[in-house]
Each structure stands twice: as structure tokens, then as C-alpha cells.
């Protein structure tokens, strides 16, 4: 293992006050549904932790997940926690290139064997190894080689978690998420397009504090953040119950902040922390800005009907098939009536 400065020393050097740091620890404990008594333990663990080695692999992605974390309006403690980790390999952020970059990855793997974290953004193409390569290495090979000595893998964003946009129908590259390939290591999914920065760092904070990964839901997402739907925590929920809905994006209902269900909001079926943690330092989240939730943290959200199609709309397929069923019904009816008439005629004759 490398023995660099502790996370606490790095944060101090960056000018993070004790108060600001403890505030972050308290928020993290609260978000992870831990009791207040755990705050000192989180603080001690993060402060004293040697900078954990992190290898960040980027595959079929748009860099939005990295942007989400690094492009905040002002430096945040979450951002600085990321600064405090030893990010030994990251395409967007590293200075090294080519063979030097790959050498850095191998060095980090050797020096921290069994203890490093692998963060992945982007989906992995499986249809043809040549669809996406880095330094001549296919994404699948790089992922499988890198996770061999990892303590855990964190899939950042919906592409890495579930295949995301590259995996949308017809999925030409055969894109899959990390969990579809990595079966022998703990995999934590932090989906979202992009995911909330606080959620990413809280997972790291838990790993630093307890050396474990958080409790996960059926899709491998941390329950502390993905345990409730957007709809359940939405401040517009009372309007849903009152039957007050915006019909268009500029009608009186929209201006009055009514429920966006009829405009296609996927909040009722979307599990994420947007409505509570919010974005841009707690400023707002998409629904607060007047746009329906797209359901970006759910598997295959691109293929679950139109973004602006209300959730309760049925998918009836082609009208031709329904017409075919109607024609078949009419034909059966005519045949049944003809048989009935024959029987009637027979009885009448007998009578």
C-alpha cells in the first residue's frame, strides 16, 4: 500500500474547517441512516484514512458523471473528499497519457492489491471488442483485468450500472453494465444520468469508515439513497392527491407548481434522492425547475415509453392487431348467430 498523507491532512491543507468537515460527516451519517453516535467514528475514519487508491475507468460514456462531480459552482467538501482520494487513473483528470497512463494503472493495482476501489463510468460493449478500446485494450479486457485485485467496484452512472443510453434499444454495441460482467467482487450501483455527487462520496465515506459497502436494493443501489421514490418525497405530491395537474409546460397549473404526472413524470417509479439531497448545493432538482422526472436512475429508462408520455398510459401496440381481434370477434359472432338460427329453425319446424 502507498503511505501518503491522510485524508484529514489533505482536507486541512485545502483549507476545510473542522466545523465544515464535521458538518459533512453529520450529513453523510444522516443520509446513510446512521445514528448521530456514528458521526465521530465517520470523522475519525475519514480523517485518519490513508488516501485510498481509486482507479476510475471510463468506457462508453459522455463524461457527464465526472462533470457532475467536478463542475460544481464552488468547491464542496464532497468534491474535496474526491480530491483526497488517490485517484491513480482517470482519463479525463489524469495528466499522464498513453503508455505512462497504463503504467500508472498497473502500478496502482500492484501496490494496492486487494485494497483499491474501481470506479467505472460508461457501459461496456460486448458485441465487438473493437467498438471501444483504450490503449488498444478492449473495455471488457480492461475491466476484468482491473477488478481482479479490487476490494469493490462502484458503477457510477446509469451506463455503468445498467447499460444506459448505449444499451438502449436496439443496443448496437451489445452494451452491458458492470454487474453483468463482474460476478466475484462487490458491485455498488450509483445510477443516475448523472448521479448525485453526494451519493458517490457517501458510498466512498462508508467504505473508508467501515470498510464495507452499504446495504443495497434489488438493483444493487445503496438503499439509503434509493429507498424512496421521487414521488414519495416530492414537494408537489399534495397536488397529485388533490388532482391538480399541469396539462402543458406553460399553463396556469405549471405556473402554480402543480403535479407534473400528466406531463410524463416518472417520479412514482423512480428511486433516487434528488427530491431530498437535490442538486447544485441543494438548490433544486428537475421537478422543482418545472420538468418531469425522466426516471434516469432506473434500469433501461430510455426504453420505458416516451419521456412525456404519462406513466399510466398503456402500450397497446399496433391498432391493426386490435382491428384484427375485432374482425375475428365479428366473424365468430356471425358464425354463432348462424348456428343459433339453424337450431331455432329446427325447433320451429319440430314445433
Amino acid at each position, binding site marked *: 500500500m502507498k503511505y501518503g498523507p491522510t485524508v484529514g491532512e489533505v482536507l486541512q491543507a485545502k483549507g476545510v474547517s473542522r466545523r465544515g468537515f464535521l458538518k459533512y460527516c453529520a450529513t453523510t451519517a444522516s443520509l446513510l441512516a446512521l445514528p448521530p453516535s456514528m458521526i465521530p467514528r465517520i470523522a475519525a475514519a475519514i480523517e485518519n484514512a490513508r488516501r485510498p487508491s481509486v482507479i476510475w475507468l471510463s468506457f462508453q460514456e459522455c463524461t457527464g458523471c465526472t462533470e457532475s462531480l467536478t463542475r460544481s459552482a464552488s468547491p464542496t467538501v464532497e468534491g474535496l473528499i474526491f480530491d483526497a482520494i488517490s485517484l491513480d487513473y482517470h482519463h479525463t483528470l489524469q495528466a499522464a497519457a498513453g503508455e505512462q497512463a497504463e503504467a500508472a494503472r498497473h502500478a496502482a493495482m500492484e501496490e494496492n492489491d486487494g485494497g483499491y476501489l474501481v470506479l467505472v463510468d460508461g457501459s461496456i460493449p460486448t458485441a465487438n471488442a473493437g467498438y471501444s478500446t483504450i490503449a488498444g485494450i478492449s473495455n471488457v479486457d480492461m475491466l476484468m483485468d482491473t477488478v481482479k485485485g479490487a476490494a469493490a467496484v462502484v458503477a457510477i452512472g446509469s451506463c455503468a450500472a445498467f447499460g444506459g443510453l448505449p444499451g438502449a434499444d436496439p443496443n448496437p454495441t451489445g452494451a452491458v453494465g458492470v454487474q453483468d460482467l463482474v460476478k466475484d467482487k462487490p458491485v455498488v450501483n450509483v445510477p443516475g444520468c448523472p448521479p448525485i455527487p453526494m451519493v458517490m462520496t457517501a458510498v466512498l465515506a462508508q467504505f473508508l469508515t467501515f470498510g464495507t459497502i452499504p446495504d443495497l436494493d434489488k438493483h444493487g443501489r445503496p438503499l439509503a439513497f434509493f429507498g424512496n421514490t421521487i414521488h414519495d418525497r416530492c414537494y408537489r405530491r399534495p397536488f397529485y392527491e*388533490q388532482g391538480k395537474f399541469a396539462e402543458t409546460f406553460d399553463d396556469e397549473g405549471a405556473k402554480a407548481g402543480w403535479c407534473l404526472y400528466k406531463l410524463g413524470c416518472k417520479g412514482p417509479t423512480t428511486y433516487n434522492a434528488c427530491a431530498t439531497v437535490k442538486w447544485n448545493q441543494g438548490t433544486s432538482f428537475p421537478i422543482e425547475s418545472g420538468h418531469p422526472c425522466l426516471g434516469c436512475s432506473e434500469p433501461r429508462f430510455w426504453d420505458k415509453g416516451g419521456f412525456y408520455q404519462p406513466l399510466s398510459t*398503456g402500450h397497446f401496440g399496433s391498432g391493426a392487431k386490435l382491428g384484427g*381481434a375485432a374482425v375475428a370477434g*365479428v366473424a365468430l*359472432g356471425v358464425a354463432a*348467430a348462424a348456428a*343459433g338460427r339453424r337450431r*331455432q*329453425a329446427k325447433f320451429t319446424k319440430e314445433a
Partner: protein
Amino acid sequence: MDLLEFARGPALQVAAYILVGGTLWRLIGIILLKEKPDFSEPRKSGGLPAALKVIWTRAFTADPFKKATLYPKMMAYVMHIGLFAVIFLFTPHIVFFEGWTGFDWPGLPNNVIYLLGVATVVSGIALLVRRLTSPVLKLISNFDDYFSWFVTMLPLVTGLLIPVRALFRYEDLLAIHILSVCLLLVWLPFGKLGHTFLVFITRGTTGMVFERRGAKT
């Protein structure tokens, strides 16, 4: 494909095909039947006015039976009015129909719908208890009666579980609710629930026949 996608997609499609095909089969099969020959002298002309009259008068109980049938009649009214409101005046349902037909209309607040849903289930249970305890009703009831009751109540119960998030997660409850509706749609044309589209035809026919024979309707 997850359970909700299956329910909203293939399951609903197949149920819709069976509903449309089955309803037309039964309707046309009955409408095209030959009228029974009636050789008696008609007392009155019958026709459409007689049909409409009976459709209206049969909505209420005849005087001699009012007292005896007050309880089941009230329960039946609560159940049918409740069903109508829950199906057609709940906003997510209106959105569903709009997706199908292109038409929409104003709905009731969700909380009102939840109350009506509970009242509908309670009246349904009351009617089932009566069916099970009345010796005559018990005798003339068969599988069709009980299964029709079951497939009508199931969407109501599964629908009421959604707002309270009981037993399962929202998306699973919604999928179960839609699947229960699919079961209702599949059974509707073939069992006694066929009265949904046959009730006015049968009552109208009764009205015309009775009027012709000079019966008081």
C-alpha cells in the same frame, strides 16, 4: 422486460384483443339471432319507446319489493356508482383512457377516489356475504357469480394498495394492479360481467316483449 413493462405492454395488449373480440362475438351472436315467432295479437305496438321505458323503470325497484330489497339494492348502487367513479374519474385512469381514445375529461381528487374505492369494496363484500348467507341466492349461485365477483374486486383491492405502498414497492403494486385489470378484461365478455354491455339490450328487449303482451312495465 420487468413485471410493469410486461403488464403495461403484452399483457394489456392481449387482454384488449380478447375484450374487443369477445365482446363483438357475444354482441353480434345475440343481436343476429332470429326473433322467436309470436303468433298472438299484439296488445300494444312495443318498439323503441317501450325498450327505453323499461331500461329506465328497471333501474328502480318496483313498489311491492322495495322493503325486501332495500339493503341489497343500496349496496348494488354504492358498488356500481363507486366502480364508475373509480374507473372513469380517477386522473391516472383518465390519462390511460386518453392514451387509448384521445379523449379526456375532468377527474375527482385522489382522496375522494380512495374513499369511494373503499366504499365500493365494502359494498362488494356486503353483497358477497348476502349471497353466501341467503339460502335462495346460495342455491342459484355458481362459479360464474363468485369468479365475476373476484375479478371485479381484485383491481379495486390492488388499486387501493398502491397509495399506501402495502406489501410491495410502487412499481410492483402497479404491475399487479394492471395484471388484475387484464384478468377482468379477459373475463368480462364471457361471464355474467357481460351485463356491462348487455344490460340495456336485455332490458330493452324485455320491455318490447312485455309491452307487446300488454304487461305493466
